[in-house]
């Protein structure tokens, strides 16, 4: 699984992307965030406020209940502010 981060999520995690193995018991975006938060305080500081985080899988916006697999590119970022 490829994880990518943008804006203040990237700043808090301290990198723009990383490879990570998806644990077998993690099936949804919501569970993936819980898993990341459990790793250490850095992920916790970046992802703990789920209402402030948006997620894309393979470059498409998804909700927290969307399934995730080890072959996915999963992006975490704040609500977008372009235009």
């Amino acid at each position, binding site marked *: 699984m490829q994880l990518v981060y943008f804006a203040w999520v990237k700043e808090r995690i301290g990198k723009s992307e990383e490879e990570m193995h998806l644990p077998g018991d993690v099936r949804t975006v919501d569970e993936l965030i819980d898993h990341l938060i459990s790793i250490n305080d850095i992920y916790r500081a970046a992802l703990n406020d789920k209402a402030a985080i948006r997620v894309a899988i393979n470059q498409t916006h998804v909700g927290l209940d969307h399934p995730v697999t080890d072959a996915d590119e999963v992006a975490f970022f704040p609500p977008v502010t*372009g*235009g």
Partner: protein
Amino acid sequence: MASISVQETDFDIAAEIATLKGDRTDMGAIVTFTGTVRDIAGDLQAMTLEHYPGMTEKEIARVAEEAEKRWSLVECRVIHRYGKLLPGDNIVLVITMSAHRHAAFEAADFLMDFLKSRAPFWKLEETNKGGQWVDAKESDADALKRWEQLQ
């Protein structure tokens, strides 16, 4: 087919219109929207736009295609810049061309609402107090809902 560019460089509205229009005479209405870097408090030094390469182009193309279908546009063009911009600089250009003016206006309005709430861009404002990520506006999410209700 909509024409999409995500680029660091500035754009020239007149040249973009001329290219898009060519020698066609089946359009009566051309609407452009240009978004520029606004210095609201008078202390903005620069604005940096970060984006998600790959997803940005896909997301804009998807929305532009929907606009073309919904309003039977003759032509549609979106340019969105990224990187470091200064107050007054151009950020985004939307051009819609249609036989009728209301279609061109509505499609451009729709495209901007979707770009604001769906295209993966993030603005970092730099003042003498440091850098600050711009918060998403509630009003932009509300603006999007107008188009869902109309469908």
